[in-house]
């Protein structure tokens, strides 16, 4: 069964993680963009992360995509703290310095579009940690996010040092979905993207 789709965007694609990505992920985490995050030392944790990425999607707790440009893994889009019944999630991007803001925005957008169309998610949060590249804030505003809160000392960056978290939100105007009985929702037959009825449906990006 497959729960995370491959989605294409102008200049690249996002796709589910596989065990083959471990080396590329290890390289990615040598360049942590979140303050306080150390360069990764142990590749074994990444095998577990790939497993978790599948479990998260299967249980609707989160979703992770590799961002690929020219067949090279350049970053990750993660949706976590996904609350399906509240139609909201938090997003995060971990990217190599070479990933441009435009590529980053395009990858985030296709992921948000998928979650909005498939799961009706309409409240996307993004947390910018003080110390991250300031241009990311402008990039989020350009994508339609609004700054709604600054959480003081909400991100731990050392034994006893903390950074502020700036909370951005993007609310979609879409109406709340109307609940229907199982089996009668032809547009949303299930979350398994391997199901034949999903094959022609997925995409913007085609289901893998």
């Amino acid at each position: 069964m497959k729960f995370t789709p491959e989605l294409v965007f102008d200049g690249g694609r996002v796709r589910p993680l596989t065990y083959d990505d471990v080396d590329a992920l290890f390289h990615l985490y040598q360049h942590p963009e979140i303050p306080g995050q150390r360069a990764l030392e142990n590749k074994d944790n990444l095998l577990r992360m790939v497993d978790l990425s599948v479990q998260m999607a299967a249980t609707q707790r989160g979703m992770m995509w590799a961002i690929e440009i020219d067949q090279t893994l350049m970053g990750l889009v993660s949706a976590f703290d996904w609350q399906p019944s509240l139609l909201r999630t938090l997003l995060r991007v971990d990217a190599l310095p070479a990933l441009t803001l435009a590529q980053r925005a395009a990858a985030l957008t296709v992921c948000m579009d998928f979650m909005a169309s498939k799961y009706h998610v309409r409240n996307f949060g993004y947390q910018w940690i003080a110390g991250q590249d300031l241009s990311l804030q402008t990039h989020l505003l350009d994508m339609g996010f609004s700054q709604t809160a600054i959480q003081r000392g909400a991100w731990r960056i050392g034994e006893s040092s903390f950074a502020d978290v700036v909370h951005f939100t993007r609310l979609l105007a879409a109406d709340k979905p109307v609940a229907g009985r199982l089996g009668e929702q032809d547009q949303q037959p299930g979350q398994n993207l391997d199901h034949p009825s999903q094959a022609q449906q997925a995409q913007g990006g085609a289901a893998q």
Partner: protein
Amino acid sequence: MNWNFTVGHFNVRLPVSDQDGEALFALLSEQRRVDHIPRLAMTVSAQALDELRRMAMRFETREAAFWLVEGAYDQQLVARIGIQKINWLQRGTQVQWEIVDTLDDDSLALIVAAVCDFCFDQLGLYRLEMRLRVGSDAQEARLQRLGFHYEGFLPAHVEYNDEAMDLALYSFLASDRLEPAQSN
């Protein structure tokens, strides 16, 4: 570690599942005491027993701790104050309270300061956050008088009575505490 303590004329203690049901139900069955969370008031006493069991389980996993605050002499329950969604890595937690109307500001300040001190000094937490429904004016005024800082809001964060509700964010940090007076 002793999680129970006394402050002023109040005992602040963890609940006892088979004893506190009635008092907890009396506290949480008034809508105006839980409206800011936002949550519906309890309507049958079995809900209080269920809540007590839930509190015990969440405490066992160190995900949350809820204290009942009662008068030291009359044993009347005046508040429940809890911390939940404790993030031991980030050293932060979310505070929640339900308070009877008769509890005055001075007493509340004393109790909350003691709970904050416990969280900072005994549990090693750094950030206490309260999320409450935007427009809970009385509760927000209380928080501000206690020294909590307004940080903004989380749009459409919970659903309540079929409506998406914004939650206001307040916080109190360990570094917000006044320096303790030097004793001679």
